């Protein structure tokens, strides 16, 4: 289980101080598919980067009670829309590199996914289209052999069919011990795919609910998000009415 205790992260100096994470405490047990939601700048990416140790933070993050170090970092993989592959290296080269560094790298899964998405083994990744690059990024994260797969808006730039394919494949190939933490804005698309939703707002966790709980209460994920964020749908109507009144007055 990944556990975060009072994690705080502040960007900038004394004048440009911005609290990206404010006392975030969260437990992510193995075998869950967790959706991480929030507006831009809510702290989703920062949270993932803190888990991976890319950013310094205050508080405590542990993996099965142990701090995350080189000893257990291989248990976490990361797919990001910034892409973490080597652009000049081929897919085959990536597989070799992963196999060398991650003992649990799944060659079988890699081949299956590469064939499914019809990606080239021998072309450098920089020659792939944006959608293919995203696919490849997720494939590598899935094949690393990690127990926790962090995905930070991995489908940005992919078309709807592509994303649909991916959700299906993900559900099909994930093993019971594998955990996916997926940060995305595509609420409705992932609603049926995730088991739990964590909502972030201004660096704080403002909502944490399982999809079973949502079903029982008869609400959709979108309803829950709107409730939590105190979204006022009448705001748009009000603005439009004001605008039309002004035009009539003129």
């Amino acid at each position, binding site marked *: 289980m990944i556990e975060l205790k009072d994690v705080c992260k502040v960007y900038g100096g004394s004048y440009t101080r911005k609290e990206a994470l404010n006392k975030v405490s969260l437990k992510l047990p193995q075998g869950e598919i967790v959706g991480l939601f929030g507006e831009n700048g809510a702290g989703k990416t920062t949270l993932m980067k803190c888990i*991976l*140790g*890319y950013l310094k933070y205050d508080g405590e993050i542990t993996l099965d009670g142990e701090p995350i170090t*080189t*000893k257990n*970092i*291989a248990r*976490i*993989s*990361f797919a*990001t829309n*910034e*892409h*973490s*592959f*080597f*652009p*000049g*290296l*081929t897919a085959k*080269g*990536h597989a070799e*590199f992963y196999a060398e*560094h*991650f003992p649990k790298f799944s060659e079988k899964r890699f081949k299956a996914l590469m064939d499914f998405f019809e990606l080239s083994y021998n072309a*450098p*990744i*920089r020659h792939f289209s944006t959608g293919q690059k995203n696919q490849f990024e997720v494939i590598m994260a899935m094949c690393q052999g990690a127990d926790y797969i962090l995905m930070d808006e991995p489908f940005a730039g992919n078309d709807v069919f592509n994303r649909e394919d991916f959700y299906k494949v993900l559900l099909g190939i994930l093993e019971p011990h594998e955990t996916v933490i997926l940060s995305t804005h595509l609420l409705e698309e992932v609603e049926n795919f995730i088991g739990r939703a964590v909502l972030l707002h201004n660096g704080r966790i403002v909502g944490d609910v399982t999809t079973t709980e949502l079903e029982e209460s008869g609400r959709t994920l979108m309803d829950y998000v709107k409730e939590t964020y105190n979204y006022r749908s009448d705001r748009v109507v009000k603005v439009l009415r004001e605008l039309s009144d002004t035009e009539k007055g003129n």
Partner: protein
Amino acid sequence: MRRIFDEWVVTNPFAGWERRQKEEDNARWEQTKKRWKAFEAWCGSKIDRMTPPGFQWMPILNWTIAGLLGCSVISTFRFLARYGRGWRSMLVSAMGEQSAGPYWTGKKWEYRAAYVYDKVIAEGATLPSFSGMMSGIMNLFVYLMIVLLLLSALHYLYFYHESKSIYLMKRLPNRMEIHRRSLAFPMTLIAVCMVTVLLLVAIYFEIYHLLVPARCVEPGQLARFLREGIFNMWRGDGL
């Protein structure tokens, strides 16, 4: 007629000798090419592991080899020029044999006495020290090595270029991998530069001693070079 010819071909031990020789040569050449390719692949795989994954190191290697050759040629020319100047500084003109012969004055031929002057090594003359001669000779190698050091910085930057592969490097169980991939290749090339410099110094030292009589060389040249010259040869005033 045909039958007779065939028999001749079979029985003649020299028949087809040229063709067989050609085939053997071709086979040998193919084998050499195969071995060379295997060696190239082996070297390539070794260098691949010393550079950031997917980095195109071949142009860097070619430029470094060209740089090494260029630096070696220039420093050799410099050394030989200094050596030649040193040699000339030891020589004095000495009157040689007297002879006589016709001499054209511009208007008419006259019979005059003439002397042949020889260049000889002056009494007690010595060649300038090897250490002094080497001062600044290798400064171009310093620039080459600085460029190679910058290459390691380029390797680190590669992990931020086009993608953020730094994220992958940072979550490898082996944290030293990023440094190995960034530093190993430039450091190896710098080591090759140093070995080349050492070889050149050894060759120059041999040349220094080889072409002059032993009496013209002050003793203790190597000790002096190791004391001073080994630092001075990198100086920037070599030109």
